């Protein structure tokens, strides 16, 4: 079930290179006027064919940045990308734009959060869906249009032969997101990166979109990276979960492990801050105190330490001085100085009771 094999060396899954997508020691840096932003640091993960990896984290935690790096969509003028990204064994970092263009939209595709902004207002939905198909398969306009209609039908747009000539502003939010999914899947990509595809939608539509993605994954065997900050959506779709904080992976494991027995104070915070429909209305939500750190000048040691309510339990000043490695504790990987025993007792004595109240 798990695509994440247990670690042999710290934080590095075994069998590197076998996976469908394998990201090793990924670092992304932006040069800005204020200095260098270390947006992603030493990130490792694997994704097996046909599986879904959920990436969770706050805004600015590096989840989108790392996936734009996979797609090669960063502006090379102000971005440096180091490490290794292998898609079916092919190294993507350093690949010329021309070769990347052949992969993008073809072997790997991406869905964006704001479908209104991500579709050009000047061209019809049909044309925008047909464009990558025509480019990658050499199909002519008529075949492109037919394929667009076929894809619109597949993602559940009624009267696809009519709606193919509509403009994006004539679609509702949910329909636009379906159209964007059609656009990304038009060439049957093996990898689909969905960057918060449900965040801008209302809850009922969210569920439809998630179901649609799951159905299409079944049909095409696509591997999906699903970026979100909604743990509810993660539970619906992800096989494995990667939790990111300040550009680093802080926790990694199967969906069940991360949601049932999280081992990192940040993961506990995330779970505690979810509103529960059946919880007593008198119990306030527990937000994580503070705000995400600046990546220009991240805190020393563990990046989460200024916001961590358990750092007093770590002996010495390790949280402030030494960065915890991503290591196995109680079943899956987490990066925290607390001992496995401490984590277990905090989880069972403080966190779980909080969640069930």
């Amino acid at each position, binding site marked *: 079930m798990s695509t994440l094999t247990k670690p042999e060396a710290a934080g590095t899954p075994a069998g590197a290179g076998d996976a469908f997508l394998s990201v090793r020691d990924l670092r992304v840096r932006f040069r800005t006027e204020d200095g260098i932003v270390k947006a992603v640091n030493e990130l490792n993960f694997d994704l097996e064919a046909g599986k879904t990896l959920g990436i969770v984290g706050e805004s600015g935690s590096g989840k989108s940045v790392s996936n734009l790096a996979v*797609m090669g*969509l960063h502006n090379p003028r102000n971005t440096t990308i180091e490490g290794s990204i292998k898609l079916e064994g092919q190294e993507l970092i350093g690949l010329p*734009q*021309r070769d990347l*263009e*052949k*992969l*993008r*939209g*073809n072997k790997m*595709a*991406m869905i*964006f959060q*704001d479908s209104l*902004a*991500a*579709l*050009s*207002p*000047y*061209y019809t939905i049909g044309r925008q869906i047909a*464009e*990558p198909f025509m*480019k*990658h398969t050499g199909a002519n306009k008529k075949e492109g249009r037919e394929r667009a209609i076929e894809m619109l039908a597949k993602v559940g747009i009624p009267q696809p032969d009519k709606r193919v000539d509509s*403009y994006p*502003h004539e679609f509702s939010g949910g329909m636009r997101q379906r159209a*964007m999914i059609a*656009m*990304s899947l038009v060439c049957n990509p093996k990898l689909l990166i969905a960057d918060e595809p449900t965040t801008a939608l209302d809850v009922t539509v969210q569920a439809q979109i998630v179901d649609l993605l799951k159905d299409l994954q079944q049909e095409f065997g696509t591997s999906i990276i699903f970026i979100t900050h909604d743990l509810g959506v993660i539970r619906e779709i992800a096989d494995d979960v990667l939790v990111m904080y300040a550009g680093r992976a802080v926790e990694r494991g199967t969906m069940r492990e991360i949601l049932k027995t999280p081992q990192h104070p940040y993961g506990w915070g995330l779970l505690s801050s979810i509103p529960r429909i059946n919880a007593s209305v008198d119990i306030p939500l527990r937000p994580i105190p503070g705000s995400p750190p600046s990546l220009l000048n991240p805190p020393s040691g563990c990046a989460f330490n200024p916001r961590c309510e358990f750092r007093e339990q770590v002996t010495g000043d390790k949280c402030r001085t030494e960065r915890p490695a991503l290591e196995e504790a109680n079943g899956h990987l987490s990066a925290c100085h607390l001992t496995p025993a401490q984590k277990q007792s905090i989880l069972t004595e403080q966190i779980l009771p909080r969640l069930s109240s």
Partner: protein
Amino acid sequence: MLRFLTRRALGAIVILFLLVLLTYLAVMSLPVDQAMLNCPKGCSPQQLAIVRHNMGLDKSNFEQVLDYVKGLFVGASHGADGFCNAPCLGYSQSRHQFVIDVIMDNYPATIMLALGGSVCFLVIGVTLGMVSAWKQGSLFDTIASSFSQLGQSTQIFFVAPLAMALFVTNLHWLDKPGYTPFTEDPISSITGMILPWLVLSIIFWSNYTRQVRSLMIEQLSEDHIRAARAKGMSNRYVWWRYALRGAMAPIVTIFGLDLGVVLSGAVITEVSFGIHGLGMLAVKSVTAQDTQLELGVLLFSAAAILVFNIVVDAAYGLLDPRVRIG
């Protein structure tokens, strides 16, 4: 579309009507007695009264305006000068011709100047803006934006004599500029206008450079540009088909409005280069105190601007599918 055009045309007519009222009021409040100007030296009060009656100046102000408006729609009889067909803009006392005929004689020069000039400023401005956006932050970008600033802050009456002194008097690259009808002699018609075109375009193209540059940069940062690249579209394709497409609607808008401005007469350029167009005519009508001609030129210019405003709004509906007109 038809509904939109009809509505806008009716609106334009209302505006023109108000314009007639306002300008007529302004002209009538001038201390110039048209009858006196048209009376021979030392004319007697009797003669003056006859002239006044012939020019319709003895009627009340209200009746005069009414006559003028009537003339616009059905024409008017001008006694010995014959019948002035609708749209009759009155009779020019200084030219001894119907105003509409004077304007039609002078308008081709303005059209020639406006069309050539607008092609120049559109091509130069958009090209510089595109390259500046492409090479953002480069030396070219800096130089182009400096030149744009310079162009926008300069004056035609300053540049025109300098350009003539340089290219005509000293370098002898061009003949003395002037208007020759294109149908008479196409080549000298063009060579005679090169300098006026370029000088006229100086104050306009800087605007296009800045607009195109910022629009392109703005477009390139849009999500749909990234999404298009994520589909595998090449940088060139994204640049031309996505970014430029988005920048086009505002540029066409500015261009339509500018075209209206230059087609309504570029006064300073025409006077600087001695081109007998609508702008020059406006100046001459004022110096000759020919109120009917002033009024006619003003109305004609206003109509040109209004027409292009309507064209721009109609074009916007065609260029941006989100804009629905009607």
